[in-house]
Each structure stands twice: as structure tokens, then as C-alpha cells.
């Protein structure tokens, strides 16, 4: 490698000097976690701040979706499957995890395909997969449903809470001007392509860099952003060329849009955002858990006094919440930002100063 990590840090300092306050929003939860883990904040110049955006899928899942999940998982004859983090999100006074403690069959999976296997092994049970995440997990769910349809697996359905990234960022940043640049999510970009983020310079007039996930890759992207700010350019530069192409992964996108189509979606803290979600196309409707099960329409409320909504918008930091570190801890989360290791509150709590 031509440049060492120290070279990058040196040049970051050089470009940041005298540049005024710069707030870079990282929209991906794994970026949030990596930035904390590598202590990136501790070596950035004072005037460069990283702000966490809405990229933790657990944190943005609406209370309504979670109460639907709990309602389904609490039924006799159901095996409910989901990713690990999702289990501890509180919903009124319960959570998927407390249903598991009570003896309900809630299982954690590491791939949607695990749900298919479980369905095949338990033909007498209804197996439900909780589909969360952005373009990096939605094609997987599409593949699951497409295969289940082909193989005529009748006891499998999906509680679909998938979301798409670009429309949410657009919505969020149009309403908020405190952000100076965007660190774009590398893995989302590997599916949708770097060009999908060209709206950031074109419409939002902000510089953007697609970034990988190790300390070197993150610093390289931050450096590139500072360079654009320094030379007054607004572009979207792909700083993760190893994994990201201009147009993304066509095959994954084709499969995704064969099974699903854009729809409005409810984001925790951000409300309803047009065209930012995905729903099953009519042909695949029977695999929709909302279609298969009757889900009581109880109006679940966002947790009391939890300011996740403002945190997701980059308007508050976790320590400004009255619950933070007192009655809201990773052991006893009050709000979703404390649940996932990627959530801003959990990250602040784990690595708090």
C-alpha cells in the first residue's frame, strides 16, 4: 500500500485545518459501530464530527411492526424467526425475547434461508420470518419467497418491514441542513450501485463518498470528503471500488423487484416516507404474514420520552435523553436505539467517555 493509515490521518488534519465545523453523517449502522470500535472519533480533528443517521434497521423499525411481530410470535403453532438484535426491542411491556423466556418458539436466524429450513422441518407449524433491513437484506427475503413459492412451501410467511435507503436520506436531509457531507453505506451500494447516491450532490448539493468498513477505508472516505469540501466540489465518489460498481448488483435487484415493489413505509422517528419501503407484489401476497394472520390493530405508542426520533435525525445526541444510562441501558432498553449494538444510544453507552 502506497499510503499508510498515518498518512491519511496527517492529510485529514491538513485539510481540516481552518475548514470550520464539518458534520459528516454516516447512514449505515455498521459504519456507526466500526467508527466506535476503531476509535475514529478520537483521532479526528476537533472540528470534524460524525453524526449517526437512520441506518440501523432495528432502530428504524416502527413500533407498529414490532407489535405485529409480538402478536404473531405469541400465537400457538407459530415459530417466529428473526435476526438477533430484533429480539430485545421493547414493545409496551414485552419483547420477542421475553416471549422466548416465557417459552414461545422464537428463534434467531443468521440468514432468511434458515427460516425455509425450519419450515421444511416443521410442516405442522407456521413459520414466520421477520424481514428487516435495507437493500442489503431485501433481495435475500425476495429469494426466500421466490423459492418458497416454487417449492410450494405453504407454512412459511414473511413479516415484511424492509426499507430502502436513498428515499429516506433524501427526505431526511431535505428537512435538515446541518449536515455537510454524507458517508454512504458500502454494502447497500454494492447492491444498488454507487450511482444510486448521485442524488446527494445533484439534489442535496452535498459531497458524498461510498465507504468500506475497516478503519483504513473509513478514513480514506473521510479524507476524500474533506478534499471535496476543500476544493468546493460536490460529487459522489466511490471509495469502496473493491466491492461497489456504478450500477450495483443487477441480478439481486432484478430478483428483488420481481418479488416486491416500492411502497410507503413507516420509520420510527421519521414517520411515513413515500416510496421508502417494499411490499410484496400481488402474486406473492400469500407469503405476507399480515395477509396470513389477523393482527390486532392496537396502537402501540413510541416509548415514553425516548428521543430516538431526534437522534435519528442527527438533532440530538443520546446523552441529551433523560433516560440515557439511567433507566435505559442495553439490559433494559427503553427505546430501540439502545437495543442494537449499532444503535446510537447503545454505541454511546458501550464506549461512553
Amino acid at each position: 500500500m502506497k499510503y499508510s493509515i498515518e498518512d491519511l490521518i496527517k492529510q485529514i488534519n491538513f485539510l481540516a485545518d481552518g475548514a470550520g465545523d464539518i458534520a459528516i453523517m454516516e447512514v449505515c449502522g455498521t459504519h456507526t459501530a466500526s467508527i466506535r470500535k476503531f476509535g475514529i472519533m478520537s483521532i479526528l480533528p476537533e472540528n470534524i464530527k460524525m453524526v449517526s443517521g437512520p441506518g440501523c434497521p432495528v432502530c428504524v423499525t416502527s413500533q407498529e411492526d414490532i407489535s405485529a411481530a409480538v402478536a404473531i410470535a405469541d400465537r400457538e403453532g407459530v415459530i417466529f424467526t428473526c435476526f438477533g438484535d430484533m429480539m430485545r426491542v421493547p414493545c409496551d411491556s414485552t419483547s420477542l425475547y421475553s416471549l422466548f423466556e416465557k417459552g414461545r418458539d422464537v428463534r434467531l436466524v443468521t440468514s432468511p434461508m434458515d427460516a425455509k429450513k425450519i419450515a421444511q422441518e416443521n410442516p405442522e407449524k407456521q413459520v414466520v420470518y421477520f424481514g428487516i433491513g435495507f437493500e442489503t437484506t431485501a433481495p435475500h427475503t425476495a429469494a426466500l419467497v421466490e423459492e418458497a413459492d416454487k417449492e410450494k412451501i405453504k407454512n412459511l410467511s414473511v413479516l415484511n418491514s424492509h426499507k430502502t435507503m436513498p428515499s429516506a436520506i433524501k427526505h431526511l436531509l431535505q428537512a435538515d441542513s446541518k449536515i455537510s457531507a454524507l458517508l454512504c453505506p458500502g454494502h447497500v451500494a454494492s447492491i444498488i450501485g454507487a450511482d444510486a447516491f448521485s442524488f446527494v450532490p445533484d439534489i442535496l448539493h452535498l459531497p458524498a463518498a461510498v465507504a468500506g468498513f475497516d478503519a483504513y477505508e473509513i478514513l480514506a472516505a473521510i479524507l476524500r470528503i474533506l478534499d471535496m469540501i476543500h476544493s468546493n466540489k460536490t460529487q459522489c465518489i466511490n471509495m469502496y471500488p473493491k466491492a461497489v460498481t456504478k450500477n450495483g448488483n443487477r441480478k439481486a435487484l432484478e430478483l428483488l423487484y420481481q418479488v416486491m415493489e416500492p411502497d410507503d413505509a413507516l420509520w420510527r422517528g421519521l414517520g411515513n416516507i413515500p416510496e421508502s419501503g417494499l411490499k410484496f407484489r400481488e402474486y406473492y401476497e400469500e407469503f405476507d404474514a399480515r395477509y396470513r394472520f389477523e393482527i390486532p390493530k392496537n396502537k402501540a405508542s413510541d416509548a415514553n420520552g425516548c428521543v430516538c426520533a431526534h437522534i435519528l435525525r442527527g438533532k440530538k445526541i443520546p446523552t441529551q435523553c433523560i433516560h440515557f444510562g439511567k433507566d435505559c441501558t442495553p439490559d433494559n432498553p427503553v427505546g430501540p436505539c439502545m437495543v442494537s449494538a449499532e444503535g446510537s444510544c447503545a454505541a454511546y453507552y458501550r464506549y461512553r467517555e
Partner: protein
Amino acid sequence: MDDKIMLAHGSGGEKYRELVKEIFLPAYSNEFLNPLNDSAILTGGEKIAMTTDSYVVKPLFFPGGDIGSLAVSGTVNDLAVSGAYPKYISVGMILEAGLSMSTLSKIVDSIARTAKEAGVQIVTGDTKVIENRGSSDGIFINTAGIGIFPKGRAVPQQKIEVGDRIIISGYAASHGMAVMAKREDLGFLPPILSDAAPLGDLTAAVLNNKNHIINAMRDPTRGGVAATLCEWVTTDTDIILYDNSVPVRPDVSAACSLLGLDPLFIANEGIILLCVPESCAESVLTSLKSNKHGEYARIIGEVRKGNAAVKAVTEFGSYRRIMMPSGELLPRIC
């Protein structure tokens, strides 16, 4: 305090500590219990060490071990890190009706084998059977252990000092990851092996050298290396961890990144952590390496003046705080 017991109360993090401090300690308080060390050091004739632990691990069998070998190793290791020489253990079992006899004998064999390896004798026991609650693998084991202090042996004070070096005796996270991979059926090939083992010989190798001063010694079980360091750090010290120096087996490291878990927070049962003055750090390392369980021992950090922070420092000079783990460890996938 919560009004109900939750699984998190058993996970060794903040909730567990709360339970001990608010329920057990006030009720049982006495001079032997209160230091809350791995074993109590008792008097009355010769000095002895005593400890007890219960095992409720699911699955009962995992690559590299089972609930029986664990029940022996865990108790033996608690004695060993207190500086004692493990001698006797008791085995109490609670069995659920319906448990297959062959499962039971497999576990009993494993208990016997591990006790032999550890050089301890099983001197008393108890068995109760409870009604079946719907599982076919209901067995819970409690072991208590007694250890003695051979003449002239240094007893770790369990108190760290500025300038000390932190030493790890081997790969971190292997045991916890092996159990998790099996329990959650994560499909790793080849399966990840637990390194759980009785470590009395390993600690003896260190303690039998009269020139060694051991300020603290622990087996970093639940909560992993992070929890032990957070317990050690005092109000006027910092522990600085050299981030990339903590040895993690390549397969375990890969599994951790696939699941989004930090190896520092994962349970161990085959390694110990030591805190020793710089002057004898090299010699302690040599002693550890003379034992088969200490082959990969290395220095991973140091104690500095500070204010109760555990910090991991990266090669390029950034750092992050390491906090007492909290919440159940669940694989994070996205």
C-alpha cells in the same frame, strides 16, 4: 431492581452484579464472602479455598466439551486462580424425569475424566429428580470445590497496581463461541472447538516460582476478558489494552466478525488473565508457556495512573472505551 428474574440476570453482566449486590450480599454478608472473589479463602487450621458454581448450559454437548467437563473445569479454575491447589469437589445434580440414561452416563464419564485430568477427587454428591417440563435434555449440575495452599505459595491479592502488565494465557473467546455456534446451529465447518479445560497445572506453573509476584489472577468466564478488566480497574488506575494483541484463534475471529460480536466480550473457560509487575512479566510468560494450556500466552496491556477507564488502543493511536458488558449476547447480523 427488576421485579422478575430474567435470563439477563444469569449472563454475568451488570444485571448479575445487581442481583448479587442487592439480594445475596445483604442477606449473607460475612468477611469471607464479601470480597466476592472466585473462591473464598477460609481459615480454621490450615488456610483453604472454597467455591461453588452451577451449570445450566444448553446444549449439553458441544464440540470440545459438555456440561460435565465444564462443571469440573469451571470449579477447578475458580480455585486455581485464587492461588489454591484444587483438591476435592462435590457434584450435585438435578435431573428432569425423561433424561436418557445414556446421556447421563456420558456426562458422568466426562466428569470423571475431567476430574482425573484436573487431579481432583469427587468426594460427595447429591441427585434430585424433578418433573419433566417438556425437554428431553434436562440436567443441571452444581459443583463445589475445595483447594489448599501449599506452603510458600504466593496468593494473588486481586489488586492491580500502576505499572503492572496484563497477561493472557491463550486464545480468547474460543469456548463461548463454540457453545454459541452449537446452540444456535450456526453451521460452521469444521465446528468451532471449545478450549474448556481445568487449569490447575497452568496456575501452579506460575505460582510455584517463588520470585513471581501475582497481583491479580482470574478466569475470564461470562462477560469475557472485558468484564474481568472492568472489575480489576480501580478509581485511580486505567487499564490500557493493546487492541490487536489479544490472541484470537483465526476460526473464532472469523466467526465473531460474521456474527458482529467482539471477542473481548465472549466467555472463556480455558484461559486465565494475570496482572503482574513489569519486573516479572517475562518470567511469568515463560512459566505459562511451559504448560500446554499456556502456549499462546502474551502480554496484552498495562496498568497506568488514571480514573477507572479500560481503554483499547489501536496501532494507529486511536482508542475506544471498554465498558462492563450488559445484556445477553445475541448474534448481530444487520
